[in-house]
């Protein structure tokens, strides 16, 4: 021993800690330098296609926000590998590496895991996309969602479906409901049971088919759906499964009157690129951008320049808006202190935005409940808004053109 007693050692340690703490606090509250934003997306794994699409929103945001005079942001990339455990670990790693705000993560299960970490560490999380309602029902103080919940998406979808049926003068009598068996899919399936009866829909669900999100072959699922003899297909899917299902519809020579999708998959560029002429027809009921808003036009132009021949979609729009929220909060807070940033996000009031609805503002749960969906139909490789009528740029095509006559 060197002669230091236990009491002396404790004193020295406590003194050292007391001297260091204010320094740490200063380091955390410093305002200089860019805002470090940890963007966590499923860049690989089963959701990789969508993850790449989402990341375009990040790439577009930088120059546009700079033009608008928002402060500089430093993007720290995180890949969930489409896996809940990895999502949690990546969130922890980015926070340890100094992220001031997190943005992500598209999938409800992965987002739930990140939200727990963000809340625990006191770092704000701005959810770009994730619809499971429970994420903002936990009483979290650091979690904010600028995306509708599953019941909102469903309410909008059923409302707009009825509008479309009235406009085309036809409606399916029966549907098969196919959904991916993950957090988002089961939340939507549960929501359908609760929300659909309120809308007095003209159809009934004759069969519900759940399937594995990692399925490599969906021939049996589609055969079962076809065997139910339903008029239309009601879908809650992802990208890979949407492609697999379409391939099977073609091979099994079944063109339903309509594919009514209440999730991603059917409007993504990879879907259109992979399936070509067979991608036309499906209708997606999704949160979308308002083409009439000035910032939407700016985003559309930037997108067209950066990714010619592809369509701007939900993935880029809501990822862009998540970064807009972060930049706006940083500008108002004037500090990178997570607590101050969270407070600034809570009082967000952005009306010069992109998505449909009055703008970006959060309720006491951290949820933007003013968002409105649109109905998008794939027509000639383009995504066309067909409802609500006020935002529609074309009439819906009903029924879908048969696959074997294309």
């Amino acid at each position, binding site marked *: 021993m060197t002669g230091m007693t236990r009491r002396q050692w404790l004193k020295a340690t406590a003194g050292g800690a007391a001297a260091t703490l204010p320094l740490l606090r200063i380091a955390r509250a410093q305002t200089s330098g860019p805002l470090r934003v940890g963007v966590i997306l499923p860049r*690989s*794994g*089963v959701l*990789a*296609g969508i993850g790449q699409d989402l990341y375009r929103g990040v790439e577009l945001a930088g120059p546009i926000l700079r033009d608008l005079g928002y402060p500089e942001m430093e993007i720290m990339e995180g890949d969930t*590998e489409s896996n809940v455990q990895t999502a949690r670990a990546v969130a922890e790693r980015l926070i340890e590496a100094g992220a001031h705000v997190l943005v992500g993560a598209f999938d409800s299960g992965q987002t739930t895991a990140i939200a727990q970490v963000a809340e625990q560490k006191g770092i704000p999380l701005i959810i770009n996309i994730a619809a499971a309602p429970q994420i903002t029902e936990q009483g979290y103080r650091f979690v904010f969602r600028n995306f509708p919940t599953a019941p909102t998406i469903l309410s909008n979808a059923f409302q707009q479906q009825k509008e479309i049926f009235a406009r085309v003068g036809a409606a399916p009598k029966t549907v098969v409901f196919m959904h991916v*068996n993950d957090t988002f899919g089961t939340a939507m399936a549960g929501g359908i049971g609760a929300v659909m009866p309120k809308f007095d829909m003209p159809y009934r669900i004759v069969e519900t*088919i*759940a*399937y*594995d999100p990692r399925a*490599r*072959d*969906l*021939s*049996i*699922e589609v*055969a*079962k759906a*076809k*065997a139910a003899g339903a008029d239309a297909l009601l879908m809650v899917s992802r990208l*890979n499964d949407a492609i697999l299902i379409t*391939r099977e519809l*073609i*091979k*099994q*020579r079944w063109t339903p009157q309509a594919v009514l999708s209440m999730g991603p998959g059917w409007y993504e560029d990879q879907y259109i690129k*992979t399936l070509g002429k*067979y991608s036309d027809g499906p209708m997606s009921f999704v949160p979308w951008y308002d083409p009439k808003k000035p910032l939407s036009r700016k985003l559309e132009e930037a997108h067209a320049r950066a990714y010619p021949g592809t369509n701007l979609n939900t993935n880029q729009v809501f990822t862009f808006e998540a970064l807009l929220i972060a930049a706006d909060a940083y500008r108002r807070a004037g500090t990178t202190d997570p607590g101050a940033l969270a407070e600034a996000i809570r009082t967000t009031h952005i009306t010069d935005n992109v998505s449909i609805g009055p703008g970006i503002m959060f309720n006491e749960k951290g949820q933007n409940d003013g968002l409105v969906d649109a109905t998008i139909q794939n027509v000639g490789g383009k995504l066309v808004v067909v409802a609500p009528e006020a935002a529609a740029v074309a009439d819906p095509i009903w029924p879908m053109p048969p*696959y074997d006559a294309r």
Partner: protein
Amino acid sequence: MPLDFYLNAATGGLLTGLVYGLSALGLSVIFGVIRIVNFAHGEIMVLGMFATLLIFRHLGIDPLASLPIVAAGLFGFGFLLQDMVVRRVAHLADHMQFLLMAAIAVVLISLCLMLFGPDAQGLQVDYAYESFAIGPLLVDKVRVYAGLAALTVAGLLFAFFRYAPTGKAIRACGDNPVGAQVVGLNLRRLYALTFGIGTACLGAAGAIMLLLVDVHPYLGPSYTLLAFIIVIIGGMGSLPGALLGGILIGVSEAVAGLILQPSLKSAFSFGLLILVLLLRPQGLLGKAVR
């Protein structure tokens, strides 16, 4: 539900099962002769799938046409792997051999990740969306070609082991290695040939499988597990058993998915495995060991 839906599902399952069976043949050949359990089975098949993808992308050759090239390439890979690596641990305890094969699997996954990235990749042949209508049956063209190709390769393999002198020699090594050495057979060369034939089967199965599913580096373990289920059901080391096991799994998964819930497909395969292990542990066509 009309009968033709079940017939369609069963036919699709049968054709997919033939491809499963071909892949499991690779595992069975290696285990039946060398007595090594190939834990890198799925990963080697994935290697074959990526090779097929590369050939398709760069040379535009259909997977069914590139099948012999891929099979030959993987034959060479398997031959060298056995002769240079696996042979050196053959005298060690079983668990050491398992560890070696598992390590090879990890190396292959990492290699595929480095070379091809983590994303799923597929190809689209001209006949991808076509199907044959035979009476009430509507059979996917890709699946028909895949099933026929698998059957042809399996038939060639059976013929090789039954009629070719080298095939007979390999069988002799599997039945009685000491006796085979006594009559002057070169065990080292024959084992390397056997491993090469097993991996060639995987190359062929991989080329065919790419017509049915997209490939990514993490696909291997699920196919290793599937092959184990198939060979245990069919009988470890039995070649007809592997093919039968593949067909059984393919058909039962398809029909069970239609009758019950599609998400119960995998549960059904495992249920079948438990049943076989309880009632006939040596597998349907396997020989009982006393």
